[in-house]
């Protein structure tokens, strides 16, 4: 994909407040019980086929191009392929996030034939005992790996997403090797977020700082530009201070299976519900979206005076879950410190 062209499209979407990218969870039900999962897997009344299609119509009309369909495990929806076909009929660029446990060759072929561009599959470890202990689903690694083979064989672009936590911190090299063997791309993420209901107990699963530092020192994993030392003092560059903290709420948002609209899957602030209001009214008029859009880096409570402000990957959603969307996200504060430490060690 041409980066400069994509930057131009993003700039245009920012200028016009177009919801260019939407993450839509079709269900929270799941056939795994991952120890770090932030969701409640009971079905509290997810949207019907007709309701989902209606929302897809509205997103297409609003200008959404990039559509991530996820869950829960979205293949648990009996109407999944009907919804996927409808999304492609509306010419969304579709990315699927799945554990792939229910993907056999026939499902892989249908996903490919419907024109899905990317499939992201969660793999926690190359070791059965570690992966299956995290998913709490015996046999899950084998089924997932088999599915990746089906998807790759059908020519689909598969990315293995490797969420890292205490249990599997040592296994990223093994998962990378597995990805290479399967012809899949690899991405890792050491972020463990609190549960959507605010329960922070799973945050204890986050990797200890020393392990994150070890990860950040691996340039083959994070790239050469990832680790940067802090600026020597407070930043007074207007380009930094006037920057938007994140694309959430500006050109991107998230929709739950129950129709709630949030700025992002990691930013569970209800801005409206598509069962009660047209999506475009929520996107354009919700006071919460207006507030999110009004925030610039200079408005943040602590960040403007921080030496890491120019390079920090602060997540406003994590800050929101800590109690203040203008405040720091402590997990990202720690990451910035570790990136700087990795840069100088």
């Amino acid at each position, binding site marked *: *994909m*041409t980066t400069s*062209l*994509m930057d*131009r*499209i993003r700039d*245009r*979407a920012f*200028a*016009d407040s*177009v919801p*260019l990218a939407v993450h839509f969870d079709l269900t929270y039900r799941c056939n795994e019980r991952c120890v770090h999962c932030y969701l409640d897997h009971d079905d509290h009344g997810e949207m019907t086929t007709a309701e989902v299609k209606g929302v897809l119509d509205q997103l*297409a009309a609003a*200008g*959404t*191009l990039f559509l991530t369909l996820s869950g829960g495990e979205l293949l648990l929806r009996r109407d999944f392929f009907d919804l996927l076909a409808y999304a492609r009929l509306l*010419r*969304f*660029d*579709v990315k699927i996030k799945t554990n792939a446990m229910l993907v056999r060759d026939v499902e892989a072929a249908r996903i490919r034939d419907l*024109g*899905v*561009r990317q499939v992201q599959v969660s793999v926690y470890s190359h070791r059965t005992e570690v992966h299956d202990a995290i998913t709490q689903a015996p046999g899950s690694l084998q089924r997932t790996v088999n599915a990746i083979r089906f998807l790759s064989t059908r*020519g689909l*672009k598969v990315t293995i997403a490797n969420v890292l936590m205490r249990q599997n911190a040592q296994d990223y090299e093994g998962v990378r090797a597995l990805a290479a063997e399967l012809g899949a791309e690899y991405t890792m993420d050491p972020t463990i977020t609190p549960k959507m209901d605010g329960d922070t107990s799973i945050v204890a699963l986050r990797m200890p700082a020393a392990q994150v530092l070890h990860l950040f020192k691996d340039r083959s994993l994070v790239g050469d530009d990832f680790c940067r030392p802090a600026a020597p003092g407070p930043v007074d560059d207007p380009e930094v201070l006037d920057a938007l903290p994140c694309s959430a709420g500006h050109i991107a948002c998230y929709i739950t299976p129950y129709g709630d609209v949030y700025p992002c899957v990691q930013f569970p602030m209800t801005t409206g519900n598509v069962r009660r209001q047209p999506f475009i009214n929520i996107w354009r008029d919700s006071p919460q979206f207006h507030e999110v859009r009004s925030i610039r880096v200079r408005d943040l409570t602590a960040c403007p005076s921080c030496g890491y402000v120019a390079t920090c990957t602060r997540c406003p959603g994590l800050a929101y879950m800590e109690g203040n969307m203008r405040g720091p996200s402590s997990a990202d504060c720690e990451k910035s410190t570790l990136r700087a430490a990795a840069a100088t060690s």
Partner: protein
Amino acid sequence: MSAFVIRGERLAARKVGGEMVILSADDSSLFVLNEVGTAIWEAADGRTSLDAIADGVCREFDVDLETARRDISEFVTSLAGAGVVSLSEVERQ
């Protein structure tokens, strides 16, 4: 010029700020069409002939028919080469 032009199926597409953004599911190729290109893409339903598309472009934009026909022919040929559209001598039913 009597062929018909049909939008490719394995593509995502959305108009962003008046320009059609097209993305290939197969190789992630990205295309951005300008206003005239967007009008041609939107008319590429397999039932509207290239002559009719040229007529429409002449009505909407400041261009003479001969130039429009020549430019559209070159344009759709290049798009067909990139797999964005296909050309057919037969009208789609």
